[in-house]
């Protein structure tokens, strides 16, 4: 089933119309969480202040690679307001100096032998107040024996490269892992007979999610009952709790992880960082609550980075423009520890979807991942498990092909799309795309953009020497990880629980295992439940982010909340509705089969006057009267949802840029985004998710990069150096949508949180490269800052890393 909807003329959603129709279910509805945020009454981690609370600060390595010769903490300990100073050696004595990463590697909590990246945790101080803790860091004296750093990913495997991971038994090089997907021989055969083969090296530089709220925690260990309460900036509170139990040996029922309001996450708050562990240790050691909040520089230099792939892209096609195969060889920089958060079977995340939205004959990827002296990470920044990299590769290489064939990039894509009747579609790398109808989405984007008129304008401008570019991208994402048979993180299956209780007066509480970072779960999930059970969203309380009060599940990342937890919410509501139906049959004295459901009440078929509301049923379920034979009282249910497949949202993006030939400044004039995320629950929230992702895309394409100098010093360690788009760098977004529901999701929803971050970078880069076509340019590497564009025009489009 495919319904084609479209945005109003011009694509913009009217701002002030129909803003809150108070839908009894899906529809545009104002957010339930906003009243506290607009009053400054959000409850973020750094807002937690407990009686007697101490403050923790971390001493970090000033260099990228060095042996620790000695650490003298005595002057710090002598400070009257300092309560504790802890080093790696102290942790090692307790067996806590190392912890597992989400990829089954290990990472230092505090360095014991060597420091392996600038900003690595070396020691921590606990003091009476925030400022003293920082002061005392200056009193710790560390002697380093500086070692040569590995900075250039291309030289990491050189025979004479210094070995970073000397902690691993028998490690003699910086190799992390090799991985491949697809069929090498079949792909080679297709390439051998293809009319046209285009090769291009494509670099996706290291970037950082940089949420406005940095990471932090407040640990409160009660030594009498042995219970630890940890407020922390966590996108996955349940997974974190289990890992703390496994790593630190604390009994799981004695750990309560509370993830309060999060000031953005974008994947950066999925891993467990050493700082969280340090705050736990500090609370146990001091017997007091301990707060750790990193500053911006710590956030940018030490927490989960994103991307950092050097991709050799190859595409084979017929001379008529039929794409036959795509092949890539990837060199992946994983930093000093492999901290990628991805399902165990997928060391490169879901990069396997690099075949894109096209019907290919063959595909193959080989990847080599290496260690370098840089911060660990790798999941972060709204990438849907490396799909951002995959989509950038395919959408850039397809544009390179269009360049060589002298074809219009939109027409080339239209010619090669997987056709609607081919779904479910098994790709050459083994992914089963659930549903899709690609051509209408791209046609709608072209219509909203006025594509032909834009090309005409471009031709005119080119004749006058002006630089205008039009970039097209089309993406298919794989989100909603994931089926238990295929996916786990450190042995934890990626299912999500959900519990729904309807109170006697017909109000309800739904408890989720996922955690919002701004996506509006308190609204969306109330709407999902309301749609199924007919209780208004304002009467449904959504509880999340507290392991003591919610069922187990793996958290919010990879756009998985709606596809997995949203399915759980819909199904648990249906389970409650099934029980309500039985109670209604007793109340109306008819058989269950004679009842019909009208979103909020059951009535007798053929006699609509005979009905009972869900609220009346709730009272009966808890009341004194008889219930149908064999039925327990109460009206509640709990489930654990295991998705049978991922969902595959898609979209068509068109970007229009103008480049100042004098300064090489790129101005994004227009951006048209048509998204298809299946069933749309709250269009206002969806639009917001898309807008945010588009801004990320402009940032990565034009501004953002975590670079390093030859010594391994991080050059993006503050917001003065790591540039994030402001309101002046981005246009007023133009959005549209189509609706192709997921066939296996209970309500057909697919997830949209990361779509725009995934789809927009290639649209922007394609637009810039298109603008520079008069210079014969086929490719230039991100971020396309004025200096890079200038260099590209001068014939140097791919700077060294």
């Amino acid at each position, binding site marked *: 089933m495919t319904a084609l909807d479209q945005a109003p003329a011009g694509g913009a959603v009217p701002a002030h119309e129909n803003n809150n129709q108070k839908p009894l279910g899906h529809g545009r509805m104002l957010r339930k969480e906003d009243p506290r945020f607009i*009053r400054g009454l959000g409850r973020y981690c750094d807002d937690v202040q407990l009686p007697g609370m101490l403050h923790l600060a971390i001493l970090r390595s000033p260099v990228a690679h060095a042996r620790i010769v000695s650490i003298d903490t005595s002057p710090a300990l002598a400070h009257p307001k300092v309560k504790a100073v802890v080093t790696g050696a102290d942790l090692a004595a307790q067996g806590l100096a190392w912890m597992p990463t989400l990829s089954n590697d290990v990472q230092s909590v505090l360095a014991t032998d060597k420091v392996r990246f600038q900003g690595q945790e070396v020691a921590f101080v606990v003091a009476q107040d925030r400022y003293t803790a920082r002061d005392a860091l200056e009193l710790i004296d560390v002697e380093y024996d500086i070692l040569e750093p590995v900075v250039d990913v291309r030289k990491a495997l050189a025979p004479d490269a210094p070995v970073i991971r000397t902690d691993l038994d028998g490690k003699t090089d910086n190799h992390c892992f090799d991985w491949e997907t697809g069929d090498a021989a079949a792909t080679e055969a297709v390439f051998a007979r293809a009319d046209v083969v285009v090769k291009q090296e494509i670099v996706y530089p290291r970037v950082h999610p940089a949420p*406005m709220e940095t990471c932090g925690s407040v640990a409160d260990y009660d030594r009498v009952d042995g219970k630890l309460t940890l407020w922390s900036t966590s996108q996955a509170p349940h997974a974190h709790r289990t890992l703390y139990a496994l790593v630190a040996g604390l009994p799981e029922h004695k750990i309560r992880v509370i993830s309060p309001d999060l000031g953005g996450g974008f994947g950066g708050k999925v891993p467990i960082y050493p700082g969280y562990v340090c705050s736990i240790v500090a609370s146990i050691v001091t017997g007091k609550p301990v707060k750790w909040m990193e500053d911006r520089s710590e956030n940018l230099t030490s927490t989960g980075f994103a991307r950092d792939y050097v991709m050799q892209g190859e595409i084979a096609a017929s001379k008529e423009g039929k794409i036959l195969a795509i092949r890539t060889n990837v060199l992946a920089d994983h930093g000093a520890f492999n901290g990628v958060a991805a399902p165990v079977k997928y060391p490169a995340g879901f990069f396997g979807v690099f075949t894109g939205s096209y019907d290919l004959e063959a595909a193959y990827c080989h990847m080599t991942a290496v260690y370098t002296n840089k911060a660990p990470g790798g999941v972060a920044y709204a990438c849907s498990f490396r799909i951002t990299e995959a989509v950038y590769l395919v959408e850039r290489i397809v544009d390179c092909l269009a360049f060589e064939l002298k074809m219009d990039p939109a027409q080339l894509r239209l010619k090669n799309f997987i056709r609607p009747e081919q779904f479910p579609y098994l790709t050459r790398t083994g992914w089963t795309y659930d549903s899709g109808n690609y051509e209408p989405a791209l046609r709608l984007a072209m219509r909203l953009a006025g594509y032909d008129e834009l090309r005409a304008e471009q031709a005119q401008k080119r004749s006058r020497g002006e630089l205008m570019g039009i970039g097209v991208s089309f993406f298919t994402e794989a989100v909603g990880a994931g089926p238990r048979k295929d996916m786990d993180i450190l042995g934890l299956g990626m299912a999500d629980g959900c519990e729904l209780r309807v109170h006697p007066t017909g109000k309800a509480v739904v408890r989720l295992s996922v955690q919002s970072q701004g996506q509006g779960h308190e609204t969306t999930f109330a709407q999902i439940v309301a749609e199924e059970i007919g209780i208004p969203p304002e009467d449904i309380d959504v509880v999340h982010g507290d392991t003591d009060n919610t069922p187990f599940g793996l958290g919010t990342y990879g756009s998985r909340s709606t596809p997995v937890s949203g399915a759980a919410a819909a199904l648990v509501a249906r389970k409650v509705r099934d029980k309500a139906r039985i109670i209604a049959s007793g109340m109306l004295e008819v058989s269950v089969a004679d009842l019909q459901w009208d979103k909020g009440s059951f009535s007798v078929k053929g006699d609509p006057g005979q009905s009972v509301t869900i609220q009346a049923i709730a009272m009966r379920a808890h009341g004194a009267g008889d219930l149908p034979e064999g039925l327990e009282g109460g009206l509640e249910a709990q489930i654990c949802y295991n998705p049978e497949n991922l969902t595959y949202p898609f979209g068509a993006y068109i970007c229009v840029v103008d480049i100042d030939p004098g300064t090489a400044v790129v101005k994004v004039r227009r951006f048209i985004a048509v998204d298809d995320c299946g069933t749309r629950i709250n269009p206002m929230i969806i639009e917001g998710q898309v807008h945010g992702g588009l801004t990320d895309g402009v940032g990565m394409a034009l501004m953002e990069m975590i670079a390093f100098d030859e010594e391994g010093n991080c050059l993006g360690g503050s917001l003065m150096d790591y540039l994030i788009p402001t309101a002046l760098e981005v246009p007023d977004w133009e959005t549209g949508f189509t609706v192709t529901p997921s066939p296996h999701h209970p309500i057909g929803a697919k997830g949209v949180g990361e779509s725009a971050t995934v789809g927009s970078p290639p649209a922007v880069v394609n637009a810039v490269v298109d603008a520079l076509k008069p210079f014969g340019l086929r490719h230039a590497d991100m971020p396309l800052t004025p200096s890079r564009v200038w260099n590209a025009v001068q014939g140097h489009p791919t700077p060294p890393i």
Partner: protein
Amino acid sequence: MQVSMTVNGEPVAEEIEGRLLLVHFLRDQLRLTGTHWGCDTSNCGTCVVWLDGEPVKSCTVLAAMAGGKQVRTVEGLETDGVLDPIQQGFMECHGLQCGFCTPGMLMTARALLDRTPNPSEHQIREAISGQICRCTGYATIVRSVQWASENRIAEREAEREAERAATRTTDREPEVAS
């Protein structure tokens, strides 16, 4: 040292360290946690408050420098249980997601509207360009400010209408009396 100031209309006198930043004074000492701290370099603007009516980044102002001045924070926008139009606008137009940048955005936007009641889109973008939002992509923030602008006009017109009505009533009073 001792510092005295007025915060959201209330007089405040506290003992502080001379180096204490205004943002930490508000958050940690006065427990007004609506003002946030997001960077160390005055780039992000989550810490914007008003100092004698001027928006400032409170991470770059010492608490001591606010001595004797009027400070207004996001907690002071709502008056007598009535939301400021800018707060209402952000709710109506989805001008926030995670909410972390919101207090700073609200303070800057409200200051803009006080000086420029009907700002153009570009004026709005320029006004908030010293602040970063990582969630919304800014378009809905622009719409939120426009909503507040339009509704403040409506508000003022309603006030004027009420005044005119009151005047008419006053005019008629002598007739009633006679």
